[in-house]
């Protein structure tokens, strides 16, 4: 008995000693650029973009410092900043050699036209068409101005005439985009019927691309039984407003929505980014492993929670579009299939971090991000890794599959955790009809769709080559059981036959 008691005591002591020891865990430093693998694990990545320079008002040599700038527009080597707080637009020319900027002119007023007010009041966005005409969203003057390159008034776009819209509504055009035919697409504060589309002669055409209204059955039921007073307090089921738009090189409009809810994004009822065609249909391809909504982990961290809030979007000529998240100050690049190409950035005061990012544009592969709080433009240029990935994508689109394969292999060597590189190699191999090797690359990164494409071809080729074997196998499968049955029957008949009975 005594031995048992001492045994228990020793056991309890041993447990207490082991339970007392703690394991120390080191927090790992996350890299600036990251990506998600197939399982949604965050994978560190070499930098895709790096900060080339950041331009404050002083560095640009402005006469008056910028005040909460809201808009950015790039055309060829010209960059336009909408200096909202100072009611002006700054036109700058980029020096291609060292990436610096030279201020060409300050646009503060226009000439001609029989309008009373010839200055701007809180301009929020600008666009320039191929002829050099300016389109300016003059927000507090309730108009969109079209000026020629010498700032002569051409025409204005005013509040849309539509039965569904109250004439007394305060029309506040906020963001705009112009297509090659001179049609204007505009987002106005407080108008949630979609984008306002004007014909090139200034007439209101229609609302296009309203976001689908999302509500669930319980919301509906609750609303049915609520009193009038309760109902007024509830969130009404209306389409959400777009935050910003961008016209890409093919004439499609990329539109992003910032006021998204986590559950709607995860349920897939709301999309943070939409690509609208002329009819306003969403034609964005979402074949990626994860939906196009930026960070897939939305938990609280550093006092920030909730989904990525895309405040602007820009699309490059290789169909990679970059979304700017104002919630966590990050940039997310997606390819034309909806795969996350890169993600980087953060909130802070260092180079490459933002406090209140509000606009993004691209010139070729370079990215320009405007921070309204810092009044600063950050220039990003691609690193070797970024260049190689873009090269590989462009080569693939041009049909140079062996060059694309080589570029993807280079990208894979630079970043072994980059799923797109493996899949890219596989896709290039698939086009070169090297099915077996392609299958191996797809299998490594769990790309079932592409694997199946390669395997289907591989299987077809294998059967064609071994048709004799396949036919032989089929014959064996069909004939052998038949033959066995026949032999058995004969044997049975022989056994039963009278002749052999003794």
């Amino acid at each position, binding site marked *: 008995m005594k031995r048992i008691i001492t045994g228990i*005591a020793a056991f*309890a*002591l041993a*447990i*207490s*000693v082991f*339970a*007392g020891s703690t394991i120390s865990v080191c927090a790992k430093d996350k890299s600036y650029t990251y990506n998600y693998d*197939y*399982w949604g694990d965050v994978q560190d990545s070499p930098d895709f973009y790096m900060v080339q320079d950041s331009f404050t008002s002083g560095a640009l040599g402005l006469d008056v410092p910028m005040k909460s700038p809201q808009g950015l527009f790039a055309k060829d080597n010209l960059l336009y900043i909408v200096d909202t707080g100072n009611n002006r637009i700054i036109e700058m020319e980029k020096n291609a050699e060292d990436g610096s900027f030279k201020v060409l002119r300050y646009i503060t007023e226009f000439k001609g036209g029989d309008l009373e007010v010839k200055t701007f009041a809180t301009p929020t966005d600008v666009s320039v068409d191929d002829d050099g005409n300016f389109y300016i969203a003059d927000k507090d003057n309730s108009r969109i101005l079209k000026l020629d390159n010498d700032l002569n008034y051409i025409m204005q776009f005013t509040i849309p005439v539509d039965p569904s819209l109250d004439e007394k509504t305060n029309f506040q055009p906020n963001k705009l985009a112009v297509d090659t035919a001179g049609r204007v697409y505009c987002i106005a504060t407080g108008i949630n019927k979609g984008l306002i589309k004007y014909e090139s002669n200034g007439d209101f055409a229609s609302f296009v691309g309203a976001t689908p209204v999302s509500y669930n059955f319980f919301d509906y039921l609750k609303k049915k039984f609520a009193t009038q007073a309760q109902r007024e307090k509830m969130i009404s089921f209306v389409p959400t407003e777009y935050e910003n738009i961008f016209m890409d090189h093919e004439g499609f409009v990329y539109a992003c929505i910032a006021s998204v809810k986590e559950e709607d994004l995860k349920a897939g009822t709301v999309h943070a980014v939409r690509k609208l065609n002329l009819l306003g249909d969403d034609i964005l391809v979402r074949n990626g492993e994860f939906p196009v909504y930026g960070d897939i982990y939305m938990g609280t961290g550093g006092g920030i929670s909730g989904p990525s809030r895309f405040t602007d979007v820009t699309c490059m000529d290789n169909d990679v579009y970059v979304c700017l998240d104002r919630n966590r100050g990050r940039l997310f690049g997606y390819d034309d299939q909806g795969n996350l190409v890169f993600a980087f950035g953060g909130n802070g005061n260092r180079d490459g971090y933002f406090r209140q990012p509000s606009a993004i544009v691209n010139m070729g592969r370079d990215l320009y991000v405007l921070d309204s709080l810092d009044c600063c433009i950050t220039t990003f240029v691609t690193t070797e890794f970024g260049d190689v990935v873009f090269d590989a994508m462009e080569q693939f689109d041009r049909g140079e599959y062996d060059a694309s394969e080589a570029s993807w292999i280079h990208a894979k060597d630079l970043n072994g955790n980059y799923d797109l590189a493996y899949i890219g190699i596989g896709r290039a191999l698939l086009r070169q009809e090297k099915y077996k090797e392609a299958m191996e690359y797809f*299998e490594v990164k*769990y790309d*079932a*769709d592409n*694997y*199946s*494409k390669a*395997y*289907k071809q591989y*299987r077809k080729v294998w059967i064609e080559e071994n048709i004799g074997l396949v036919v032989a196998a089929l014959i064996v499968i069909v004939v052998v059981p038949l033959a066995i049955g026949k032999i058995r029957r004969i044997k049975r008949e022989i056994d039963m036959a009278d002749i052999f009975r003794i």
Partner: protein
Amino acid sequence: MIAALKNKSKWQRYFKSLKFALYCLTHPLDGFWDLTHEKRGTYAAANTILILTLLARVMGLRFTSFVIKPLYWEELNMFTYIASILFPLALWVIGNWALTTLFDGKGRLGQVYMATCYAIAPYPLIQFPLMIFSNFVTVDEVGFYNMVNVVSLVWAVFLIIFAMQQIHEFGPGKNILFTIASIFAMLVILFILMLFFSMISQGIAYFISLGRELLFRL
């Protein structure tokens, strides 16, 4: 032990009882009656089927095509994975026996176990060829795989229900009633287990804190 292994008639009986599982697949009512009443089933065969089932499940992790079952190895715990079959099986056998023995069920605990093991025979029988088949499948053809997969499970469930009916000598209505009741019995056992587990862990925590206190004082 070795003498038992060399006993030829025992081996013969073992293989015969294992082969009888195939008969039960297609003739459940007749087969499961004979299983206990004619003593045509053996525990050795039942254990073999169970081991094959576990093997099919574990091997399926590795040898099923990633097109159908992509597996995140970092998250896999082999022990809980195996327990995810053994634990419900044990709950079922105990719960079913504990309940039916109160209501004229003729089956004994061991017989319930044996019959259940015989009844899950379709699972390994279908899963092993299916595992090989999965590697020749593209995403468009996954439907075929899923259909056969479901067949293996539904077949096993039906066999379990029929097996219990024959083991306990119940009528069909009573059998269905007790099948549902057994599931509730499983839940009750689970609840009691969790209750005991939390009580025991609190008891251990008490002794640990006592030991800590002693260490501080000494």
